[in-house]
């Protein structure tokens, strides 16, 4: 692809428009000409001013007032015709960009070298993107109208600009436009409405070993319809799907066929089955329910209830850190969930109690949507761990997770809600803030102590502390129903 050259047809004037222009221009010319002639022949001699002019002066006046404008008047349509004749293509190659004249313009714009384009912006007219504005190093601005160019071609131009315009600065408006355009061309909904941040997207979507299911794919003999990809990475993926029209579910997928190591594959299948069984046995209004699990095409699936609402991560990222009373209320709910899990026989350790796995539903209650057991083994099996180390206690990193590890994660989650920042790994979390009571801050620090002995010894204890803090701070707890302490 060393000789990249694109020629993109862009509309200038159509033949009909040209014809129309010439006709009107000619008519106007005749009108003006007649008027001028009439003026010079009949009216002017009558006016004393003109009469008094010498012959030479009159001639000069005639020249400047009539002849020269006349020449110009005639020149314009000729030039226009020539320019249109030259072709109305946008030329894109490795070295630069050649723009045709703007609609009806008289001259082509000079060739722009990529290295000369300093700034690229989106020009919006009447609320809709109308042109790409390019500022070259001399300060001049050129506009490339995109209304009349095919979307694919606009994408090509933007890609070429991105590839070869190493010095060009893009405005956010143009970047978003480009992303939305690329999504649109491919029929992807994209995240334009949820304004997701780049690093968040990379957390949810990382490299996979397999090809994730395409939207529209049907599973389980056509009873499940995949709507979109929510997350994927390594050997697993999460999809939003429908198992009956209008009934949204979440599908967790594990691609076991991709494990080349027999031992690892068996282990992971065992863990997956165990997780499914466990989830099946749990019965708590704030823990997502397992509707079904099955294997298809070498991949294992769990069909989970869909929690409508936003994850705590989204909530905090878009709305900012939460106020202390909110955090205490939500913290109490979370403590309640953990209490339930830890009091099972044998105790269930969640292992992934993070803001990404907790959804705040529309009625104000928290829902736990994911179970980390298989995830953690997967991380070990595939080897690489991405992200959430801030929420993992040292013993969990060492592979010896226990209920106190969940307490650590809960501490980290509370810290996140109050600050909007992920806690730092292997460090007790302490926040400085006048708006948060010292007691709460101390509690969070204790919960995230590296040594197990120094943490509150159970979720129940955490709940008790939270209630005490709530009372001292003066929060009413009537809205919360589910805390059993």
């Amino acid at each position, binding site marked *: *692809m060393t*000789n*990249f*050259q694109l020629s993109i047809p862009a509309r200038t004037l159509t*033949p009909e428009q040209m014809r129309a222009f010439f006709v009107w221009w000619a008519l106007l010319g005749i009108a003006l000409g007649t008027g001028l002639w009439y003026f010079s022949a009949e009216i002017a001699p009558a006016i004393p001013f003109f009469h008094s002019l010498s012959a030479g002066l009159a001639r000069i006046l005639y020249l400047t007032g009539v*002849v020269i404008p*006349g*020449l110009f008047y*005639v*020149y314009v349509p*000729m*030039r226009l*015709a*020539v320019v249109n*004749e030259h072709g109305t*293509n946008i*030329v894109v*190659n*490795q*070295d630069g960009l*050649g723009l045709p004249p703007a609609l009806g313009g008289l001259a082509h714009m000079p*060739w722009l*070298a990529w290295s*000369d384009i300093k700034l690229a912006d989106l020009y919006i007219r009447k609320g809709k993107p109308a042109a790409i504005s390019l500022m070259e*190093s001399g300060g001049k601005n050129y506009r490339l109208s995109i209304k009349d160019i095919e979307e694919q071609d606009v994408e090509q131009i933007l*890609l070429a600009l991105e*590839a*070869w315009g*190493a*010095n060009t600065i893009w405005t956010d408006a143009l970047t978003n436009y480009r*992303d*939305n355009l*690329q*999504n649109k061309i*491919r*029929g992807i909904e*994209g995240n334009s409405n949820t304004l997701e941040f780049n*690093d968040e*997207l*990379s957390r949810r*979507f990382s*490299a*996979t*070993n397999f090809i994730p299911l*395409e*939207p529209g794919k049907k599973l389980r003999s056509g009873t499940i319809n995949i709507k979109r*990809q929510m997350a994927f*990475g390594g050997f697993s993926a999460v999809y939003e799907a429908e198992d009956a029209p209008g009934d949204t579910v979440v599908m967790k997928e594990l691609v076991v066929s*991709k494990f080349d190591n027999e031992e690892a594959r068996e282990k992971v299948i065992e863990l997956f089955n165990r997780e499914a069984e466990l989830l099946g046995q749990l019965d708590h209004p704030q823990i997502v329910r397992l509707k079904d699990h099955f294997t298809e095409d070498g991949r294992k699936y769990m069909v989970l209830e869909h929690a409508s609402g936003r994850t705590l991560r989204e909530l905090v990222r878009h709305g900012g850190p939460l106020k202390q009373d909110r955090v205490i209320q939500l913290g109490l709910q979370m403590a309640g969930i953990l209490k339930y899990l830890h009091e099972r026989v044998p105790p269930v350790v969640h292992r992934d109690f993070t803001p990404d796995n907790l959804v705040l539903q529309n009625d104000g209650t928290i829902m736990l949507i994911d179970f980390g057991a298989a995830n953690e083994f*997967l991380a070990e099996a*595939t*080897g690489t*761990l*991405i992200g959430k*180390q801030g929420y993992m206690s040292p013993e969990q*990193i*060492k*592979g010896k997770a226990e209920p106190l590890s969940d307490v650590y994660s809960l501490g980290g989650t509370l810290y996140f809600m109050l600050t909007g920042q992920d806690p730092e*790994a*292997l460090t007790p979390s302490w926040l400085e803030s006048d708006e948060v009571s010292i007691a709460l801050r101390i509690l969070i620090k204790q919960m995230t102590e590296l040594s197990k002995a120094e943490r509150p010894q159970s979720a129940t204890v955490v709940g008790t502390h939270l209630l005490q803090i709530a009372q001292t701070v003066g929060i009413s707890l009537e809205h919360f129903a589910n805390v059993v302490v």
Partner: protein
Amino acid sequence: MSSDPELILDCTDSMLESYRRYRETGDVEDLPGNWKNDPGFLESLEQAEDAGLTLVAGYSDEEQAKWFDNTSSPYSFDAVQKEFESLLEKALTVEPETKTFEVRDGDILVPLWPNTNTFSEKKDNYAKRVAIGFVIVWLGATLWHFTQLINGGTYYYFQGIMAIMLWLFALSQGITHINFGAIGIEFQSRFAGNKSKRKFIPWNNLTDVCLEQSASGSFLNWSLKLTENGGKTHSIKLSKIANREQWHNVVDALNKWCPVHCRGVDREIFDSLSLNRQDPTYTALWLQALSAPPKRERLQPLMAGASLQAGKYEVTRILGAGGQGTAYLAKMADDKLVVLKEYILPVFVDAKVRREAIDSFKHETEMLKRVHSPLIVSLNEAFFEDNRAYLVLEYVDGPSLKSAVLESGILEEKEAVKHALKMCDMLNHLHSLTPAVVHRDFTPDNLILTSSGELKLIDFMVAQEGNDGLGGMAVGKQAFMPPEQLRGKATICSDLYALGGTIFYMLTAQYPEAISQSRPSLFNEKVSVELDDIVNKCTALDSKARYQNAKEVKADLEKCLRESVSL
């Protein structure tokens, strides 16, 4: 005729005479011009005579005169001059060509922006129609004037307008093409099938050709300056040529017909002047990946026998599958084996995610290119096909260190140390680059042990550029990640921690415990105290308590080796 051997010269009698006179008196005045300026020739004549050769003139003056005077001879002065003049005339006359025109064989025609076509396509020709329209009006006005319908000023007004307009119009065309021919450079104005010559510079008239920088410094405002005999200059702005292909044509033409005067004008100027040009292969790849349509052809992994890149690579079997993708063994045309590392690029996700995936692939290719070394797997090529990206890597014949130890058990200390020394070399190489490369995944899985005992490092997916620990998210294998890497702040010392962990693995066949300082002697009694201490120091939790670079580790390992030999 003497019996001496003769040397017949291509000259007249009188020329030879003047030479003889020169030999006697040293008088150079009468010598023919070309002999006067060529002392080497005179010397060779002298040598010839001294050697005994007799110099003989090839023809007499009369004979020569006959040639020049005989106008019927094709070599006569008149004849030659006439021919030249007629050629020049031909070159200078305008030949109105219609619709299609052929470029004379050997000529190079360069269109200037905004004409991107060499041949002006005949479209709906408004200019001609408009011109014809005005001509009709002009004729009409003349007619009316004769029939006294309009008179005086109005008529002259029309006359003037038409004349001036047509002239202006012709002038305003501007130069649209440059034709480089055997005779010279012709600046043409082509329009709607008509060609008019504007300027003509014969090659002999050209005294200088060079590139002139522009005031604004903007690259395409540089101009190609042609200087004529007499000082007149013509400039062609590079932005008018606008295209490296046309530029090559220009330079080729210049080289073909006027090599002597070309100064500082070379083909690669477009490349060298364009700033920050990225590697074109990878740019093309990236462009291809980003603009690919969402439809996937293949949904299943590649099977044995599958071919990629139109048969360039044929898949033999799957080598392994990791969390980021599958590795295949493939065969090339000459039976050369390579490894294809496949990355699946997500399709149905937001453009930002797609870009991210493609960028991280690009990052790995760039890393591999940068870290080129015999200790590290080398990258042959990278390509993109069917929404998947592939790295073509050299085939390293052997199992990973992890599999090797699992198969054959714990390594002997000497062997482990030898491997460890090579690992130090690898890390040293990476860390001494500018900017330094922190691998972040230096584990037994990523080290291949060849049958000849060589170690090679593979997989740069999570390698980080720069030692300032701003790698962002924490990535890697838990057992080999020191605390600062878990916090997302990996540095060179983090790789040393992993090195310690890898040595531990070689000696114990187990992964070390995560985030803890390890001592292999607790699991393997045969480990010497020195080696034990080395591993311990490498895996100190505080990065400042560890070795500070791979060279230090190597020094201690060498000491250890010497000690074990002496035992």
